[in-house]
Structure formats: C-alpha cells, structure tokens
C-alpha cells in the first residue's frame, strides 16, 4: 500500500512498472489522462474507481469495471465489437488531427 495516498497495490500490468512520478494516485492520474486521450477517439472514456480499479464507459452509457490496461482493451473490444487498432488509417488520422 502506498503510505502517502493509501492505495493498495494495483494488479500488476507491465505498464504500471515504468517510471515513478510521485505517489500511486498521481501516477494513476497521468495514466488515466493518457488512456482517455486515446479512448476519446471512439467517444469512450475511463475513470478511476477507489484507486484500485477503473470504470470504462461507452458513449451510450454502458459501463465495465476493469482492473488493468490489458483487460480494458479486451472489454473495449467486446463493447465496440472490434478492437481499437493503432495501425488503422482512420484512427491514425484522427489522432494526428489532434496533434498539429
């Protein structure tokens, strides 16, 4: 558990073991920002739940509780019916449009 913010350890996903930018809560904030930048391409979003889980939300209001990023991509695929593909031309162009 993080002694500063009281968050129990997250389920280990390799992406949570990169670099430390302060407390677990602060780290999760940056992670959520990065995930939401990408999810917003398909009008989905994700938010923190109790500092240990995440809630993935569809544009129609469907929700799914996910524990880590690997599970999030799986649930997103189930909810959308197809994966979010970073090699897809339309996805690349949409992302590029946000980074002039």
């Amino acid at each position, binding site marked *: 558990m993080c002694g500063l913010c009281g968050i129990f350890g997250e389920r*280990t*996903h*390799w*992406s*949570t*073991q*990169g*670099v*430390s*930018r302060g407390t677990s809560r602060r780290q999760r904030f*940056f*992670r959520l*920002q*990065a*995930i939401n*930048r*990408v999810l917003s391409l398909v009008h989905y979003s994700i938010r923190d739940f109790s500092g240990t889980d995440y809630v993935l939300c569809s544009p129609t209001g469907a929700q799914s509780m996910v524990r880590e*990023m*690997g599970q999030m*991509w*799986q649930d997103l*695929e189930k909810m959308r019916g197809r*994966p*979010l*593909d*970073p*090699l897809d031309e339309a996805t*690349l162009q949409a*992302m*590029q449009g946000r*980074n002039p």
Partner: protein
Amino acid sequence: MRMTHEEDAIPVGILTGFLGSGKTTALRRILEAEAFGDSAVLINEFGEVGLDHILVGEISPDVVLLNSGCLCCTLRGELRDALSSLLTRRIRKEVPPFKRVIVETTGIAQPSLILSTVFADPQIRHHYTVGDVVTTVDAVHAPSQSRQEAVWLEQVASADDLLITKADCVGASELNEINVLLDKANPTARRLDVHSNAVLELFALRQRGEEAERAKRRRLTALSMIPQQPHDKPHYTSVATARIVATTPVDWESFGVWLSMLLHAHGHNILRVKGLLYIEESDGPVVIQGVQHVIHPPEHLASWEGLARATDLVFILRGLDPDLIKRSFEVFVRRTDN
C-alpha cells in the same frame, strides 16, 4: 542489504526449438558443465512415452517430466504446479537449493504462452522470474521449416540466444543462407554453435549490481548493429523488422497505452519487441522486452553509460508493415515531445 525481487527470484529459462532440432542434446551438454549443477529441469514431451527425461536424468537427478501434451496449449496449469512443487521441495530440503530452472519445451510449443504462465500467476511471479529463451536451430532443416512451419518463426523470434545445431552437416553456403534467414527472423539474438564453449554461458544466473548493468549494456549495444532501413527485401516476405529510433524523450504513460493497444490488436503478429526507452523522468534507459502478447516487467538501468541516449526499439513483425508501426509510434507516442 535487501535484495530486490529481480535479484532474489529464481530464473526460469526456456529451451525451445522445432521438433528434432537438438534440444535434448544441447540440454545434456549444458547440464554436464559444473556450473549447471544447481539447475532443476522440467521436461515437456509430446507423446505417450517420455524419453528425453531419461536421457537428461542420467546427468541431472532433479528432472520433472510433465505429462504428455504440449506445455503451451494444455499443460500451463501443470507447469505452474511443477514450479510450485519444486519450490516446496526446496524449502523442505527434499531437493538441493537449485538456483535456476530450465524448461525444455516440446518441439511445437509457442514460447510466449509459457512465458505468460510465469508472469501471470501471482504465486509463481513472486518466487520466479523469466530467464533467457534459448532456441535451437537445425542447420539442415531450418530453410524448409522456416517456409512451412509458423511455430518455427515464433520460436526463433522469441529467443535471446539462438543455438545452431548440426552446422557440421551443411556447407559454408548453406550456413550463410541460415544466417541471412536468422538476420530477418531475429536480428537481436546472440548466435552460438552448439559445440562452442559459449554454450556454457547460456541460462546465466542473474548478475547483480554493476555487473548486471554491464551485461545488459553489452546486449543492448547489439541493437545499434541493426539497420534502420534494411538494405534488401526479406527472404520470406511476411517477416520484417521495424527499428524505431528517437533521440527526444518519450512519455511513459503514452508509450504504455500505445504498446498495450498495439499488442491487443496485433500481438499474434508481433513476434518480438526489444529495446530501450529514453524517458525524461528516468536517469537511465528502461529496457523493454516482449514476445507476442507478453511483455516482461520493464527493467531500469541506473545510467546511460556506454549507450546512446535515445529510444531504440526493434519489432519483429509477421505480415505487418514496418513503416506503419513507425508512423503509429510517431502519432501516439512522440506527440508529447514538444
């Protein structure tokens, strides 16, 4: 001084290679060396009658034969149980205090699925760490196997070390052809002849402190030998290498989102990813390694000493366009450079 999990955990090395490529012969040669006296061995054979464990058992008494069936498809639970049981027996002093485990897979196993067992299980992950993947390459049959067997490519691409067997049965031109083949399939792996003494350095135990840093650096400098733009067309068109080099720091969170999304969508065809990341908040590079859907826990080096301060990643791809991977990295990850 308290040791980290990385230093404390027992490495699980994987010896793989296509059917008949000389895995058991190589294992016998390795285990005969004095330095390997403290190894436990798990053997997975495909077929009703296990033979390999008898051959190896003459040398190393701590051999466990996993039941018939392929480790990567049906026996992952059994691998977990075998690793767990080894640990219990070690604590009870029923077996000597082994320092490493070597798993010899079947000739048709996908190493990525075995790696995921070690990473995914909370109990196993706590006591063991993933060691090197060593793949035997049959010099006589490699050209035909590379064309006909998809799993051959997955085994070769996932290797840290490639062990060339039966090289004495082919001529210089055939050996050259195999080297060209391996240049495409896995340019980052070290290549050794099974008869060379360097074989005894395989499955090396985790080094500690500065020694470990130096060893990692030696392996990573090999990345700079790979051309960013390959000079010739791949020997077989479906396999290609993408090398991404970026001299400005990248944002770890954006990288994590991008790579996990990429692997979810295309992991089956990303045979290997290996390299280092230049992250602003980190004093040294972060080492990234993965096989298909499985990414090893990132390793942090203390400094950039002896390495160029840049992100340098190599992807071995099957049927994917290397330029598209590079463009996707630019769009999703490097956007935060400014």
